[in-house]
């Protein structure tokens, strides 16, 4: 049985990225939109690691490490904003963020 090629990993990552992008564009719950952003980040990480092995370059794995850290920081700040905006609301949609205009 043949081993999967790098191209097949890239195609799967593209599928994951497209699903995440659809979620960001179509859903209106900011929490779900955040999860979809995580999906897109994971798709990029997967393609980085696949290319790191294809090119035998460990730098591709280092950058995934940094992406993980930045993703964690992004989630912390984003959820902090969501909590402070949505604390006194019953429903949760992205339109409520219009009041960030101040």
């Amino acid at each position, binding site marked *: 049985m043949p081993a999967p090629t790098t191209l097949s990993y890239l195609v799967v990552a593209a599928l994951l990225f497209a699903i995440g992008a659809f979620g960001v564009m179509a859903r209106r719950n900011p929490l779900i939109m955040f999860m979809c952003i995580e999906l897109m980040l994971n798709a990029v990480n*997967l393609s980085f690691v696949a290319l790191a092995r294809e090119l035998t370059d460990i730098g591709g794995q280092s950058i*995934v490490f940094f992406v993980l850290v930045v993703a964690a920081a992004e989630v912390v700040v984003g959820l902090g904003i969501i909590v402070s905006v949505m604390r006194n609301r019953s429903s949760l949609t992205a339109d409520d963020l219009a009041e960030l205009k101040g």
Partner: protein
Amino acid sequence: MQLIVFVVASAMMLVGAVGVVTRRNPVHAALSLVLTLFGVAVHFVSLEAYFLAAVQVIVYAGAIVVLFLFVIMLLGVDKAEDLRTEPLVAQRWLAGVAALGMLGLLVVAAARGADVLRTRSEGLDTALEGAFGDANIQQLARSAFGDYVVAFELTSVLLVVAVVGTVMLARKRTAAAEA
């Protein structure tokens, strides 16, 4: 064997991703996200990135998803929302068309780049061959703390900024603090 692992992990990943987008209850979406993250971790193992697979499970599935679940419970939005009404006219259609277009572009770009990739990897010297396998963690440490040490220090600054900013954002303002 590798092909079976690839197919199963991809199926986990894509089923989880579709679950995140289509579940009406945010708690179910977060649990689908865990499935996706485990699928990606399995891919990392089969790509011989063992350290990143462990970090993926610990940081993503262990920390980030738990944070999501905490916020869902804190805000009390753990009830199903009605997805049948379309908020904006044709939003979903346009989103679907845009996502399919993006998928097509990415796949075409990857397929056209495959030849370039092959010639490029043949030209490389294979001194780094040992970077994959048992020596993975040592090589990764040498890269992250050696070549990219400035980026590493900057991420620590970023984390401090994020933590301080979040504490400022999320704390309740009391009269005593204002005075």
